[in-house]
């Protein structure tokens, strides 16, 4: 299967009496951004953990880059990277040391070079030798994602990448994810923010009650619902727009915010 990054069929998982996944099916194409949408406790993280070989499924099959997650976990781990719900960074190490540690664990030739490269790309070069405990939430998340990109994995899992971030940091993460997909990395992300899925994803799947209840491109999903009506409403700025206008930091972030709003309308 050269064009399928993830193939999931009839996936089942229970925690004791709680039946979380009741037969989940979906597939993700290589090089695309796939968003798994669902509320709290819908089982999004469970799916990510199964695909990243951290949990064993009770039933069904899942293949990542052609490797079965249950029988060939090493093959899966070679080609993926996981950015979990909490920024899994080492607070006592510096940003550079965090990146170099992962580069060494991936047995790369020149860890320092790899680290410098990513620090530059993620705008962390200035903070490279500071301990991560001094970083802001947005910087931590950026470092977290940068750590996941060490060794250029083909497939990146982002489990609620913007949970707990302020609007600016969220837009930064969105920009980064779009860039990654532009370079051919497959991105699998989970989110509970509808806007995030709308902004980023090529394809969206909605997880509810243990099953995928709807899936497709945004346009396809929109067709499932009654056609849009035309209404004339005075458009008030949202609080987010006001916040970003007042804070007025970095041009690109604001531009991205405006672009985002335009696309979302």
């Amino acid at each position, binding site marked *: 299967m050269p064009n399928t990054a993830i193939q999931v069929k009839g996936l089942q998982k229970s925690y004791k009496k709680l039946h979380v996944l009741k037969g989940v099916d979906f597939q993700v194409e290589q090089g695309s951004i796939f968003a798994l949408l669902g509320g709290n406790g819908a089982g999004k993280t469970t799916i990510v*953990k199964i695909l*990243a*070989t*951290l*949990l*064993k499924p009770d039933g069904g099959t899942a293949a990542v880059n052609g490797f079965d997650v249950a029988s060939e976990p*090493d093959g899966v*781990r*070679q080609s*993926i*990277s*996981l950015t*979990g*719900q*909490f*920024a*899994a*960074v*080492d607070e*006592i*190490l510096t940003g550079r*040391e965090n990146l170099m*540690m*992962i580069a*060494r*664990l*991936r*047995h790369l030739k020149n860890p320092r070079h790899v680290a410098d490269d990513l620090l530059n790309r993620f705008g962390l070069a200035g903070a490279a030798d500071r*301990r991560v405990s001094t970083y802001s939430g947005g910087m931590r998340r950026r470092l977290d994602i940068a*750590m996941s990109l060490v060794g250029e994995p083909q497939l990146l*899992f982002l489990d609620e990448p913007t949970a707990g971030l302020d609007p600016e940091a969220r837009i930064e993460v969105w920009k980064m994810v779009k860039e990654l997909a532009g370079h051919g990395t497959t991105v699998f992300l989970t989110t509970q923010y509808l806007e995030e899925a709308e902004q980023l994803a090529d394809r969206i799947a909605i997880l509810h009650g243990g099953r995928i209840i709807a899936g497709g491109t945004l346009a396809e999903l929109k067709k499932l619902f009654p056609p849009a009506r035309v209404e004339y409403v005075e458009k008030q700025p949202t609080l987010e727009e006001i916040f970003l206008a007042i804070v007025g930091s970095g041009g690109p972030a604001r531009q991205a915010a405006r672009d985002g709003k335009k696309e979302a309308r």
Partner: protein
Amino acid sequence: MAATRRRFFSDMSVMLGRSLRHIFRSMDTIITVTLMPIALMLLFVYVFGGAIHTGTDNYVNYLLPGILLIAIASGISYTAFRLFMDMRRGVFERFHAMPIARSAALWGHVLTSLVSNAISVAVIILVALVMGFRSPAGVWSWLAAAGILALFTLALTWVAAIAGLSAKSVDGAGAFSYPLIFLPFISSAFVPTEPMPGPVRAFAENQPVTAIVEALRSLLAGQPVGNDIWLALAWCLGILLVAYIFAMRAYKRRSA
């Protein structure tokens, strides 16, 4: 298999480097660990010491082995704490989703515990020397004493790993070490067991700390160790084995 083993050692050295940095960057953990035992040592030598009759003329010599065990028992709670934090912050998940040997992350913490406790023990021995501790023991006796202390550290570190891996809160991860710290008080570490009332004496004489303390005391005094050293080794190895099995089980459950 050879490739996996090579991978295990190189991965583990990366993990070891990481957690060693944690120690050297926050020396306060070493200070907190050594402070309480040193305070106890001062208290017992200069306050209670005059009233305690141990049959030796140098009470620091008598006291030191027990103080070292107390230091190790409190030192290992940091390992539980670090393991717990790694688990809660998702650091282990990140490692486990990578193509690396899974137990490398755990062994990194365990070896770090050996290093940090060795530093604490060395600091306390230095303070004891200032307070009048003297040992006629030769190199081999010192090495044997160091070996017992290392084995004791390793055994308790695996006990700490069980706590760190299965705790539900930070407090839970650290609280288990209190009874371990208290154990030396009901042993021959501070006073001889003979004057203790029957049941207390029976407990004191048959619990691991007494055997380990007696073995260390004889080694450092340059005297024949007799049966105590075998009893001490048996206790350490026994605790080590049981704790290791349960810790590994907890680790696998947490990282299925």
